């Protein structure tokens, strides 16, 4: 049985299946929201990391627990929690990455029963004192995972886990690299499915699956068709193929992304030499390029913008895109503040931009079709 792209697609449709199986076998599953919590620690504790996501289903239960004037993605996650769809998760790591996530911690904890709950504070600044604080915070997390998992996480064990997760990231980067070609060997829709699948199974299985997929895709004959327009998509939590699929159906190849379920998550590795907790802190706080982390720069405005956004422009050049879509979820404060800057930065670099604000549930497909199509007509 091929455990490659096909398996990934099946997992995408039913993400919890493997985690549930493992639970039957006596393993414990630790859920986490957002790209920031260190999966490496979960793996090192002999537990199964599982990335919590939402769904495009209408929110039915969450309104009784959480107000509507906030991040629809987090609301959707809570909705699933209330509907008992996360009952297979034994515990949660809840990071202080943004207001919407942070302030939902109490509510999740109160209404969605788990046997383990850990609040992980994450500094907003990337100063030496911030890294020190965060390394200590990871140490506290390590202690609580040890207690829950009934194991001691030795330094070797942690380094090994880091190595395996680095491999996972490297494989994802390798797969991403296959999108540089014209046409890309894997579509953005498929990439999303692969990413979602990869984050819902243990890292060892994820690596196996990714290796199979890379082999499969490198020699495939049934890949995406070449389109005139190659796009970059920038945004936050896209965990469903609906939007990306729509873009690709309108007649473009989405060849690279900067998303929480995409390159933002796996582009950089953890350094292997030295103290592993410090290194984990450094990757998460220093290398994950998310607007919620304040990038300090002295100097001119241009230097500041380059410091914060040149990596997006570099992606665009490397992957030879002719346009970018900013897909911003409504109520996502940090991204909404950065959006006009990112838009202008890319346009000044010669990359036309479509700036969309959505409520995550894609209630008006027709409207998006028109905008995306008009954008493609504009840049062709």
């Amino acid at each position: 049985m091929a455990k490659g792209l096909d398996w990934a697609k099946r997992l995408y449709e039913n993400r919890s299946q493997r985690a549930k199986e493992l639970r039957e076998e006596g393993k414990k599953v630790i859920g986490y929201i957002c790209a920031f919590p260190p999966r490496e620690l979960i793996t090192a504790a002999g537990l199964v990391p599982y990335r919590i996501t939402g769904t495009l289903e209408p929110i039915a239960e969450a309104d009784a627990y959480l107000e509507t004037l906030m991040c629809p993605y987090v609301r959707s996650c809570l909705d699933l929690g209330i509907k008992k769809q996360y009952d297979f998760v034994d515990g949660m790591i809840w990071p202080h990455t943004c207001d919407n996530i942070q302030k939902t911690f109490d509510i999740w904890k109160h209404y969605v029963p788990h046997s383990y709950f850990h609040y992980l504070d994450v500094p907003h600044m990337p100063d030496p004192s911030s890294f020190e604080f965060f390394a200590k915070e990871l140490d506290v997390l390590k202690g609580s995972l040890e207690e829950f998992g009934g194991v001691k996480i030795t330094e070797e064990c942690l380094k090994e886990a880091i190595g395996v997760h680095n491999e996972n990231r490297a494989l994802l980067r390798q797969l991403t690299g296959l999108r540089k070609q014209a046409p890309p060997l894997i579509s953005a829709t498929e990439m999303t499915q692969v990413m979602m699948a990869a984050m819902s199974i243990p890292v060892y299985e994820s690596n196996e699956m990714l290796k199979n997929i890379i082999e499969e895709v490198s020699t495939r004959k049934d890949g995406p068709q070449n389109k005139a327009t190659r796009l970059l998509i920038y945004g936050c939590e896209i965990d469903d193929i609906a939007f990306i699929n729509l873009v690709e159906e309108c007649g473009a190849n989405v060849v690279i992304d900067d998303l929480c379920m995409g390159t933002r998550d796996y582009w950089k590795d953890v350094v292997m030499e030295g103290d592993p907790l410090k290194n984990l802190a450094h990757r998460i706080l220093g290398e994950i390029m998310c607007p919620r982390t304040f990038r300090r720069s002295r100097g001119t405005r241009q230097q500041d913008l380059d410091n914060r956004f040149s990596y997006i422009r570099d992606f665009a050049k490397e992957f030879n895109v002719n346009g970018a879509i900013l897909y911003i979820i409504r109520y996502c404060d940090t991204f909404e503040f950065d959006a006009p800057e990112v838009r202008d930065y890319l346009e000044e670099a010669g990359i036309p931009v479509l700036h969309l604000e959505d409520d995550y549930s894609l209630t008006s497909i027709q409207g998006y079709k028109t905008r995306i199509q008009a954008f493609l007509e504009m840049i062709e």
Partner: protein
Amino acid sequence: MSEQKNPEATQEVPKRTSAKKWTESARKVRGLVRDMYVRAFTEGKPVAWVMFTLANELFVAMDVVPVYPENFAGLCATKRVGNPFIDRAEADGFSNVSCSYARIGLGYAALWKDMGEIPSFAPDGGMAKPIMMVGSSLVCDTRYKWFQTYSRYMDVPYYAFDMLGPPAATAYRPDVREQYIKYNLAQLQGLVSFMEERLGKKMDWDKLDEIVRRGEKTYVLWYDAYMLAGGAVPCPFPAEDSFNCFFPAFFMMGEVEALDFYQGLYDEIKYKVDNKIGSIPEEKYRLLWGGGLPPWHTMQIFNYVEEQGAVFVFQSTYLPLRFADVPDRITDPLERMVHSRYEAAISRAELDRKLGLFDLCNFVGLGNPLLFVDEFKVDGVVMHWLRSCRGTTIGQVYQKNLLEERSNLPTLFLESDMCDVRDYFEADWKVKLSAFLETLEARKRAGS
């Protein structure tokens, strides 16, 4: 460059929207607010634009005039001149769900740049040009993201610092305590270094020490005054006064005037409490404003409910921080600042624990109305959902659910925004408030 008409020409004459106040102290505040803006233009001192960061003492010590753009936004909203600034910010691509304080502040700078001068409809002469900007992560993300965007319109160095607070569950652990205090201290030190560099002079630590200790006394008076008023029957200090009177604590902390103000407020409230002097002639319903920034655009709404015999006896949005005494062995003023804020978090957490709410992570976030409803003899709670404020809106439904579970008090949700008047539907509010009071009346008659 947009060919647009000068926005002031299409401005409507602003209606008076502010509330009539009951205390002398509250009536003094408008003058203090105006002074902040006027000083910045006239005193010849360097000006800083600052977010509310619990660090005002540093600016006082370094002889800098701090101007607070979030206060400016509230002022614009009261005078109903906020929306042209909002329109300008949105024209640049900022979302209508982003903090309306920020949209007003950014729109102000954008229009200033477009027009080459401060728009003439900016209240109190507007905000003077700063030589530095300071933000922090305290309370919400907007507080460090907002000023990062100013470089679009102004060439002024910006410094952001972190101020983190632990969840109640771990705040007591000595190692956690040490971890947080160490970090917050380092972050404050970073701010001082930045200020020294910008101003070309060193911090006067003795002066800061004096100011910090003055601030500590001020915090105590602020807390005592508010708590004394909340429990008093009849209510001498309704919410509209209380919302005004937070100004010196938030934006003038460390100044002699702030200390004098809260001494005056405390004395005034004590007098009224001792002599059973309230506000409205007949207190039929005692309400609590249980969450959400107030509707700066229409503070008169508080008078509206007062006409129907209801008074907001307390508001838990701008809760005074009850600092425990900082031990004498801590002599460094920055350390004293950090310790006192940490102690405030612990004391809040203690209150939450008493109620069996063990793990609330609301360090200077939502005040918890549950803490006050019994003590302040409250009949009903009103909360305000704000389209553009995640910091004070998220968790309100949770608070309401807890209120229902524990105290059987009716809760009303009102929806608008703190500044953006497009989100406010007055007829809707009036109907809801009247209906709510009818509910309270019915409960009274039924003897519940």
